[in-house]
């Protein structure tokens, strides 16, 4: 399958990789032509102006992806093609911009600030690219080619079985199981999801207080401690063993769901840097250009 389902990097036989190489090489030639001249390389040689203009145009064009993405009727290529070009030309921006500045980015002023804004956009872009390229496959592996709704349904069916089993066990253990079910926490803010923080709790009868049940570890430990004690009571032993193995599956399922949430947030959280810093970058860039032309 050559046409269907192609990755953004290899799009149209690496067309934009070629563009990337051409623009970097051309910029390099321009940059190198400054050496051996009376003035040292900087932003204010004619070469500096050419490189500066080029990187400004690139940045403006890169920003247009945000617009093109939402122009669903647009016939200007496909969004995939745009993203492919965006990634490769985005990659050339730091190189071109760095040559434009000729490395003069030590001082802290609006000009260097703009440069660092740009770097944040670019680094977050890399994170995004990494996520786009690798996360979907893992996400799909994690949920085993099923819908996430499928796992949530499985989880709730296990919960129902556990609640039923628990009701037949003695009061202490039953309340612990039920509190573990109740105290399970999933989701939360994007950051919590990304880090996979597990705030699940349960009420431990032995300790008389609420303790952490992250990764269902506490309840599994409690059950595993009780099983040997119930050796003589066959009925109880079966119930405990059942609960134990159900919690084992529950742990697996929660891991799958948590991982899925984590992947999902990974796929979008970088945009929370990429977009705001694009805006800051544009503003910085405007000021930078304005200052250069009127006050320098």
């Amino acid at each position, binding site marked *: *399958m050559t*046409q*269907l*389902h*192609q*990755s*953004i990097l290899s*799009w149209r036989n690496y067309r934009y990789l070629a563009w990337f190489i051409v623009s970097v090489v051309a910029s390099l030639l321009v940059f190198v032509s400054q050496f051996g001249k009376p003035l040292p390389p900087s932003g204010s040689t004619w070469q500096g102006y050419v490189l500066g203009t080029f990187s400004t145009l690139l940045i403006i064009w890169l920003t247009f992806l945000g617009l093109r*993405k939402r122009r*669903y*009727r*647009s*016939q200007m290529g*496909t*969004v*995939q093609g*745009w*993203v492919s070009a965006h990634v490769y030309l985005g990659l050339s921006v730091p190189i071109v911009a760095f040559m434009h500045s000729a490395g003069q980015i030590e001082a802290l002023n609006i000009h260097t600030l703009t440069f660092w804004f740009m770097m944040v956009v670019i680094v977050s872009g890399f994170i995004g690219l990494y*996520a*786009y390229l690798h*996360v*979907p*496959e893992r*996400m*799909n592996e994690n949920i085993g*080619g*099923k*819908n996430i*709704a499928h796992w949530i*349904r499985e989880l*709730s*069916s296990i*919960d*129902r079985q556990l609640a039923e089993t628990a009701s037949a066990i003695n009061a202490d253990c039953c309340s612990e199981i039920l509190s573990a079910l109740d105290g399970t926490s999933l989701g939360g803010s994007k950051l919590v999801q990304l880090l996979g923080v597990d705030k699940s709790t349960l009420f431990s009868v032995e300790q008389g207080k609420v303790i952490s049940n992250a990764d269902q570890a506490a309840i599994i430990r409690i059950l595993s401690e009780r099983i040997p004690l119930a050796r003589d009571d066959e009925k109880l032993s079966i119930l405990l063993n059942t609960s134990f193995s159900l919690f084992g599956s529950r742990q697996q399922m929660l891991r799958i769901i948590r991982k899925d949430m984590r992947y*999902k947030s990974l*796929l*979008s959280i970088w945009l929370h840097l990429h977009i705001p810093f694009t805006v800051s970058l544009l503003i910085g860039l405007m000021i930078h250009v304005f200052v250069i032309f009127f006050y320098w």
Partner: protein
Amino acid sequence: MQSTTANHYELVIIGTGPAGLSAAGRAAQLDLENGASSPTYILLESASDISSNVRSYQKGKHVMNEPGYLDLRSPMRFSSGSREEVLGNWEDDTARYALNIRYDSEVTGISGSKGAFDIQLRDKTPLGCSAVVLASGTSGNVRLIGVENDRPSDFVRYTLPDPYIFSDQVAVVIGAGDSAIEDALALSKQNYVHIINRRSEFSRAKAGNLKDVLNAINDSDSRLECHYDSSVMSLQLPAAQGDQGCLVLTTPQGERTIPCDLIIARLGSLPPRAFLEKCGLTMSSQAAGALPDLDRQYQSDVQGIYLIGALSGYPLIKQAMNQGQDVVDFVAGNTIVPADHTLIVKRLGGAFGDKGVDDVLDYMYEKIPLLQSVSPIAFRELIIESRLFVSGEWADRVDKTLSGIGAPVIKPENSFLMEAGLFVNKFYIVVEGSVSIQPYAGAAWESSGPGAFFGESCLFSGRSQASSAVIGANSVIIEIPRRILIKLANSNKAVREGVDQSFVLGMLQAIFKPKIPSKNLLGLCARLKTQTFEAGEQLYEENTIGDCLYLVRSGTINLVRGENRKIIADQYAGELVGQLSLMGHPRRHNSAVATTRAEALVIDAVDFEELLHNNPTIRKKLEDDLSVLLQENNSLATHDSSAKLMGFLMKQGLGEATNALAIDSSLCVGCDNCEKACEDTHGGVSRLQRALGDSLGRFHVPTACRHCETPHCMKDCPPDAIHRTPSGSVYIADTCIGCGNCESNCPYNVIELVATSEPKAPLWSRLFNALSPSNSSGRAETGSVVVKHAMKCDACMSVSGGPACVRACPTGAAARLGSEQLLSLLEK
């Protein structure tokens, strides 16, 4: 004529649908004109209200008065409006004419003959009449529960126009079909629901419904409980208004009583066939939807019994009402010009000069041997629904002031009627002059005269057209829509066989090119039998000795090999299966399995040998084709998982798809840009649902139209609103009346009935709407008039640049593909 006595009427009209009401209204008018002292007619209705069928529409449904080009001719009023308005008008008019109606009077049969019919009523009251107008519709009689107290009431219901008027009640739904499931799911949103299934599974339900109902039953939070293997023993009505009644079940665990507020029985209906046969009528064919043949005055083969409305094959309200008025005049012997007369005049457009309409119809009829056994009324309908293409002198006579829908289309000599490679949804018959056909690209053009027909191959196989056709000099050609041809073919054996033979001949010619003269193939053609295979059924088994080969007519056949049934090829309409074993390798090297419902022609080894023997060039060509196929096979056979994946894709309908959306989950970042793009380009309603639909491995097939080769959704659309573009995209036109037939006919659940939204509001107001809590989704709230239309993916036919969903996907995960590309998916 006999006079009217207490138990004898001139005319009995059966059914108070739009057709029956209109007929009764006309009969009442005539009585008034003739000064009759008491009604000479009686209108019988099995329900206790008029128009049970229209009454069963969803509450608030917008009833449409399609077709727009036809004027209403009826004493009763009808214009588009809500279901309540339409019924209200009919109720008023019923009172105004003081129609002589007898309710709760189900007719179970008719005996006798013209002038002296006996009408059998369920309650055994004797009733006689001179003539009968049957207007009982095709929806049949609903099946009752079959226990005491099962008559329709507020407690026991057989339809559920609006599930959302109930809340916090206990409802019991009886039945396991799609309508039962849909009602149960809708009710369970606001009520506690028991669903009673006679069997241990929901075997009749569509895949989508099945999944939903099983999820709901297994979901601890849902309020839906299912009783399997259970049947109704008895029921008790509520003692007083507001009390609960109850339902008693026999279950595997014993008897069980369920107290409840509401019972909805969805047990389907008895199709009218048995009833019509009990009335002595002959069906035009064995096909499931067949109806009796009628003459131009709607009279059946039993003189004195007339059929109108849905029963006469006309599926819309306005047509039914016009027929209702006309038929009463026909029965009374009045000479009238039928309501659709002007339509035919327009269709002919003066091309036939001053000849009267009936004369022209007779003349055309004579010219077309294929239609010789078609009933006059069916021929009339055919002309009304068709268009004429005219050239030369015929074109000169056409009244040029006529334009728009239905007027003759003037074509220059030698212009295309049909082009190879495109999809056509029409069937053409030559009436005058000639047509030239090129059977396949590169072949010689052949000219045929009056009576010749073409276009059937695309209609039957669902594949794009292989042949091209151009109009000759001085010619008249009828262009018939798919629906009408299918209807004719279903009801008329001669049409079915005639068209079928031509279809088969065309396929044989395409296979055996360079061509054997068609007369040499005719004999073979007549001997071929069509065999139908259900999805999953096997045509033949590996390692058996082959004694025949198959020519696929429609659907897809997989060739599989070895223990793990690796797929080595899939064959489509017009392709051969099993030829290898007849070409020097008697043992079958693979098994052939139908992956969709498929039809194939069986060609006997002896016949095949004879063909090859007489035509050595053909053997060479077939051998070449075969070696290409084998090379393709080889690359596939190395893939182990391909059989499983193929099975999955076939189940998802990709085997019959011309253009289906497939997402590669290993590229999809879940941004939903595809849905947003669809929404944006389609009036705010996305035609695809990415997260829904099934997956296997990395392949995900979202809920979106597949643009099937033979679209199931087209099967039963009353206003014929589902069409297909030349490139094969299936779309629904604005003439959709929102009846929901296509929604239930589509096996992939991609059609949704959506309240048509207002034009998209400007961005700022949408922003504000998004902030305010009120509903801004464009779906009308219950209670108001609901104008619903069937909506589905139209392959972005009106968006330049092609499928917006695909073009909007940032990572290239979304792709649209046809069945030919399936194999390449497997290679990945």
